[in-house]
């Protein structure tokens, strides 16, 4: 699995790792389902997607991220992306992801 979960108070920290491309589409669907399920329980107020260990990423996973962001906000929780590498941050800038969510260095 390229991801694992950790709780820090009301924060849900999602640590993702590896290269994220369309080849991992099943994992993407799993991640959406698992984050949604955890947020549905109502105790999570902030979802923090930790990208410190993500080396590569493509547009398929940008779609996965955006879907998670929307589901999280539908449940009135907040969503941030943390610690993207220089290359991943550049990708986020290309598609102006910072317009729709906070990205923390």
């Amino acid at each position, binding site marked *: 699995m390229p991801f694992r979960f950790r709780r820090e108070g009301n924060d849900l920290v999602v640590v993702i790792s590896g*290269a994220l*491309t369309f080849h991992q589409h099943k994992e993407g669907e799993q991640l959406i389902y698992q984050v949604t399920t955890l947020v549905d329980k109502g105790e999570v107020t902030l979802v923090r997607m930790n990208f410190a260990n993500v080396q590569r990423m*493509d547009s398929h996973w*940008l779609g996965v991220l955006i*879907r998670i962001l929307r589901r999280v906000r539908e449940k009135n929780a907040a969503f941030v992306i943390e610690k993207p590498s220089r290359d991943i941050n550049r990708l986020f800038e*290309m*598609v102006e992801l910072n317009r729709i969510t906070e990205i923390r260095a």
Partner: protein
Amino acid sequence: MLDKVSKMFFRVFGKPKPSHIRAAQEARFHRDTFFQAIMDGESLLDQATLDVLVQEFPKDLIEEADLYLIIAECIANAALHGEAKVLGFHARRRRKILLLSFFQIPPMPRFIVTVLSLARTGALPDYDCDLPGGLGFPILLRLAHRVTTSSDRTRLQLWLRLNRP
């Protein structure tokens, strides 16, 4: 004709039909071609294919992160939207221009040309729609100087300006 390029990188992934290999080779033959790979439909769905292509590509031409993203997006385009049974990847350089060309059988569906045209406007897709997507071409257009398709829709071509000598 193809003997002249025997020193370049050439690799076949999977087991494409010999006729497909010949078609992919001849589609982009050029004396400046230095990198050529031919992939069958199954190998497009294997992460290892992408990893090997990036690993074997000359390191001094383009940022590895950009190359990875370009090849990943073009393979995804061919495999998921283009219904490719075979995909040829060719690279050639002329002075400060690097051409990355992707040839596929069968040709890309017409809607891909339309999606590329829309992406050329510079607009990004609506992030509020149910299934956000369509970011592939906007990304490619930000990485390359030009992105074009051939009139028969068998080729997707990216021209990149090289900053390096």
